[in-house]
């Protein structure tokens, strides 16, 4: 469980440290101490990885990408003018886009994602809730999951290429 929750860059040494702490002291209370240690340590490690990897420019790109997806779907799937004007649609789209970006940033902390597609499930549930709840349009929800993820991945690749390209020019 702890291994599944930890970002892959931290699994090895954090699990080892938790195990070493568990082996110290009374063996009868070792499992309880391990669980308590894990409950306190794992969220700190995840938080630290997220903060370490966050770049505000990339977060802005993600927000733009996810916002565009939600806006396009609003026009495709339900009565856009009514939704945007009378149902405070723009604010709701912005809130959902911010939440989707936050989930994506947490997911990025788990890179490389091999064997750990944790937050794709959250993204999927989240998008299904939004589109199914708002429009009862299941295909729209699937569209949001797939294209939202694709667009944000593309945004990340362009950002990394642009940033690393500028860094290379600066050092040469």
């Amino acid at each position, binding site marked *: 469980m702890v291994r599944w929750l930890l970002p892959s860059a931290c699994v090895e040494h954090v699990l080892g440290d938790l195990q070493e702490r568990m082996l110290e002291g009374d063996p009868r209370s070792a499992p309880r101490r391990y669980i308590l240690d894990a409950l*306190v340590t794992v969220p700190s490690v995840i938080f630290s990885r997220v903060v370490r990897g966050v770049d505000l420019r990339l977060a802005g790109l993600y927000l733009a990408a996810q916002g565009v997806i939600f806006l396009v779907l609003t026009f495709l799937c339900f009565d856009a003018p009514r939704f945007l004007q009378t149902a405070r649609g723009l604010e709701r789209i912005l809130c959902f886009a911010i939440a989707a970006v936050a989930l994506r940033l947490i997911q990025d902390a788990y890179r490389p994602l091999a064997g750990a597609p944790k937050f794709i499930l959250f993204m999927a549930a989240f998008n299904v809730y939004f589109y199914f709840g708002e429009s009862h349009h299941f295909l729209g929800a699937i569209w949001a999951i797939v294209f939202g993820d694709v667009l944000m991945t593309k945004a990340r690749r362009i950002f990394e290429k642009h940033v690393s390209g500028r860094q290379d020019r600066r050092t040469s």
Partner: protein
Amino acid sequence: MPKSESCGQFEQLVLTSILTLGEQAYGIPIHKKVQQLSKPKSVTLGAVYVTLDRLENKGLVHSWLSDPTPERGGRSKRYYRVEAAGERALRESAATARRMWDALSEVTIGRHGRKWGEAWK
């Protein structure tokens, strides 16, 4: 002279622990040393990890994974070493703390003119 990063108090404790532990500076011993230095305040292992990550981001420490060790279920240890920038930052923090103490030592309190902090020496 290169500009040095500033360190918070907890970062100073972690840097001091890494320096004093030498070649044995990995998660658990660093945590124990920090707990010793920060008594009576208690310190969680998670707080130490967060600070180690922050120090590495600032370029004040460097880390690497060791070979797997059988006593830890075949898992590696992540060792830390203080970089030159980290030593500079810690030296400046210590110098600032010394100047503060010297200034405070001149402050007298009460009608007997007792020196501030005398009881702590």
